[in-house]
């Protein structure tokens, strides 16, 4: 299977930081995967997403996305990757349609195709009736869905999701999860971070648990649960591996 993300021996330390946030990280995600990237606060998840997004650079190691080195093909790769940040990173004073038209324009999508794509995605996520409402008047769940749609506008081959379902109701969460599964079936590889272990167990075909800048365990949810005979679900495995101490 084609490797869509390949991170080898990645080290990253911030300018004013006292430690390596990523300390020899190895990560491989294959086409067709929904990879759950799980870990406690400060483990290095967001830094990994930032590196893959091209927002920051690694100190050591190599990153290859869709078979291309990120340093050499950053601009080209930006057009093939969809990124959904944890923040609702859209413009509240603009309507859903205006936001999507703007972000679609940034990807250089043809106007006619963009309109069709916007209509399709709004329909898919149940927002077509609200296309002309300003985002500031949306509920939390609707904002999350629009936030996700922005990352899907250009039909990316790889989707990076940073806690896409945080703080929303069960219905909205369900719409997002179902649509992510559908997108994956259509060929989009997904790297997904979350603190919701049940959701990860339900959605992901593979999970990696990161702590202190390294992957400490990797496999399918079933494989991981199986490795610890006394554990009944992914959450108990996760707690066993990362400990119960509160992280800040």
């Amino acid at each position, binding site marked *: 299977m084609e490797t869509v993300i390949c991170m080898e021996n990645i080290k990253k330390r911030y300018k004013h930081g006292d430690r390596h946030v990523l300390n020899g990280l190895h990560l491989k995600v294959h086409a067709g995967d929904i990879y759950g990237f799980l870990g406690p606060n400060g483990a290095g998840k967001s830094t990994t997403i930032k590196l893959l997004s091209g927002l*920051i650079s690694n100190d050591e190691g190599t990153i290859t996305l869709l078979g291309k080195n990120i340093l050499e093909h950053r601009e080209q790769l*930006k057009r093939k990757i969809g990124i959904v940040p944890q923040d609702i990173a859209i413009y509240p*004073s603009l309507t859903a349609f205006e936001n999507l038209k703007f972000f*679609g324009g940034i990807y250089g999508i043809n106007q006619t195709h963009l309109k069709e794509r916007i209509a399709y995605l709004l329909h898919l996520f149940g927002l077509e009736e609200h296309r002309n409402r300003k985002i500031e008047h949306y509920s939390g769940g609707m904002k999350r869905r629009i936030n996700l749609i922005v990352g899907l506008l250009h039909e990316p081959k790889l989707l990076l999701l940073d806690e896409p379902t945080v703080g929303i109701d069960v219905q909205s969460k369900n719409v997002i999860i179902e649509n992510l599964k559908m997108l994956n079936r259509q060929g989009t590889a997904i790297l997904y971070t979350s603190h919701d272990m049940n959701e990860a167990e339900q959605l992901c075909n593979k999970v990696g648990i990161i702590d202190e800048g390294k992957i400490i365990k990797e496999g399918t949810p079933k494989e991981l649960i199986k490795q610890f005979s006394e554990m009944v679900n992914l959450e108990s495995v996760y707690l066993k591996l990362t400990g119960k101490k509160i992280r800040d």
Partner: protein
Amino acid sequence: MRIFLSLLYKDFLLLLRDKAGLLLLFVMPLSLVLIMTSMQDGMMKSVINTDVSLLLLNNDMDSLGNAIEIEMQKSDVFHMQSAKALDSSMTEQDLINLIAKGEYLIGIYIPDSMTHLFIEEYKNALFQAVMRQQISQDTVQKMKLSVYLDPTVKPSVHSSLMSNIRAFFMEIQNRFSLKVISKMLETISENKIKNLDLSECQGITINEKIADKGGEEGFRPNAVQHNVPAWTLFAIFFIVISLAGSIIKEREDGSFNRLMTMPCSYAYYLSSKIIIYLIVCILQFLGVLAMGIWIFPLIGMEAFIIDGFFINLLLVIICAACAAICFGISISAIATSQQQASIFGAISVVILAAIGGIWVPTFVMPDFLKFISNISPLNWAIDASYSIILRKTTVIDVLPECIYLLTFALVCFCVAIFYKKYKL
């Protein structure tokens, strides 16, 4: 190009939807220019024309004291009130108390026997010259006229009022002394000289004109010609607050980072902001200009005269706007929060305006401030604007100032780009 157009579309919509921001950008400059110009216009009129309240206590009650009182009553500058008419027993201390209370702006006390002492002094001087007689030193010391000013009068108004009073007394004194000399010459000449009245001699008159290159007769820059460009530039520089705030807001809500993960460069992102805010600055300028030309005359002020130099002034404004916008961009890159950017932006613009000569002309500043004013973009902009409006120069003449402004803009732009790279 598609990316750039999309960014312009977004920035235009964001600005359009920000009602408070629009008010700040368009209503603030108009109000600022209107208030400051009418205030300065009113201040000039109050000093030059009428309504300076004056209380005169004439204890002399002789020809010199009476002449002063009559001339004061005729004056366009002062609105005189005779103290004796208010209270016939008023003393010098009463007059001081009334001025200290702020009842009148100026108080003048003419001491007892001033006319007599004045004539005596001139007599002595003439007799000394003609007859070799001695001057009585006592009379010189006693002849003192006192002027009291309201303590709240600002130093600038104070000196202006005092120069008016000095000029006024000098004129009366000259006329009176020439009259005294004329009479004494008649007396000394033992009727050889008759009907001599030197006080009617006009002497030197001053012909004051503004050095106008075009030789336009009667051209006189007014408060409007000075204030419209000055306060427009000040308002344009205030764009840094709105601009820096908008950039930091995008950074804080994550949309900036999201854009950077897309095929959109930081330079593109900033260029779109520059174009949109440049349009805002031009609209601000046109709004203020329209107010100066059409609204000011309706409220009793002189109209702003733009004849023939609109394009030249517009070019200077564009250069100043570029400097202001890029300054705002550099603040947004360095500041860590919207609050920090607004405080720093506002204070820095006020400082740049102060040292740039917006409030006080740079030629009256101390040497070190004069030197510092040379590095204020507001100073370059105001110099260039005055050159065009008041000295009627061309763009070629103000090219150095325009180049300074554009260089400042470029430096600020580079600071923003490099600071972002450094932060990562």
